[in-house]
């Protein structure tokens, strides 16, 4: 389980816990321009996962849903209470919400079908329908053909990463961390002994090399 996944447990709505409306006071005072930039970057990165697997999720919708949940009015009445001790920075709290929404999908991708965000008539589906089917009870068993395509897509991404790391020891160490589910730069730095700046630079290189990547399906 990666750290994004770890955050899922912390972000699930405890039905016995009520939304704390005083959080809105603090949300109202936030410097949203600087808060939203890293959240947008995270949403774009997470959207790639779906894109690589042949599905579409709109990053802006993810950000909006995270903001809605923080305000206590997410899709289907979902909400998240901001734990300031765990996430002193609002951007980290919002990122944890997106990590939760999208990790959930990853965990359920084996059992649930991912669908486009639009209905047949072109209207937009609720994001929750798309990325968190278990939460809504709308479970769709994937077909054996889709299962094969999904597996091939994942295999293709995995192979691409090892190709990128070929001949680059530091990059290789980072890829091994990712394979083990270690995803936070500081945790990668700790696990590999690399400087955090080096980790960030390598991740930037990885991002650039994956920019135009499309999984090869046989």
């Amino acid at each position, binding site marked *: 389980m990666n750290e994004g996944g770890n955050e899922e447990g912390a972000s699930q709505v405890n039905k016995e816990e009520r939304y704390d409306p*005083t959080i809105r006071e603090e949300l109202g005072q936030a410097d949203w321009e600087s808060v939203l930039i890293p959240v947008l970057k995270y*949403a774009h990165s997470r959207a790639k996962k779906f894109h690589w697997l042949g599905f579409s999720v709109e990053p*802006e919708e993810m950000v*909006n849903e995270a903001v809605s949940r923080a305000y206590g009015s997410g899709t289907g009445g979902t909400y998240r209470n901001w734990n300031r001790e765990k996430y002193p920075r609002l951007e980290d709290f919002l990122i944890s919400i997106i990590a939760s929404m999208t990790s959930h999908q990853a965990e359920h991708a084996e059992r649930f079908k991912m669908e486009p965000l639009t209905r047949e008539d072109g209207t937009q589906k609720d994001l929750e329908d798309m990325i968190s089917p278990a939460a809504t009870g709308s479970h769709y068993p994937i077909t054996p053909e889709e299962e094969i395509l999904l*597996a091939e897509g994942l295999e293709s991404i*995995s192979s691409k990463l090892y190709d990128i790391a070929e001949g680059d020891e530091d990059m290789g160490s*980072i890829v091994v961390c990712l394979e083990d589910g*270690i995803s936070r730069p500081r945790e*990668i730095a700790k696990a590999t002994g690399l400087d955090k700046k080096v980790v960030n630079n390598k991740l930037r290189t990885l*991002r650039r090399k994956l920019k135009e990547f499309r999984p090869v399906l046989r």
Partner: protein
Amino acid sequence: MSNDKGKKNLVFIDALTDALGRSEGLSVEEITDELWEEGIDVEATLQRLLVKREEISRAAKRERLEEAKKERLRMEAERPGFLKRISGWTKEQILATIKELAASLDEAVSVSFRDLESKSREDLVALLEDLELAKQRESYDKKENG
């Protein structure tokens, strides 16, 4: 994708997209540059997100006012006189009671006291109602749990 390899790859791609999305140690300017590199029109996207954030905030406030209205009616039925009592209060009296109630709650509440003074009386009354409700819930929960 029922085999271990498939599961492992899912963890891998999850960690990859998590790692590539993190911005630890990067300034807002650096993150903005990265988004531009990705081909994202940061300014336009940010403006849309800010507008949407305003809408979400307003909708949440409306929702809360609706809830507060329902709760007010319920409170009036359960404790007639509370709302009537505070209706004639000064802003200072409301502020003092908010601080008193917030301090008396078992559950920590996050009230940003430094900005309360700038709030409208309507907002303060709404906050006071929230705290009063929280107090009532605590009393109710204690009674329920013996």
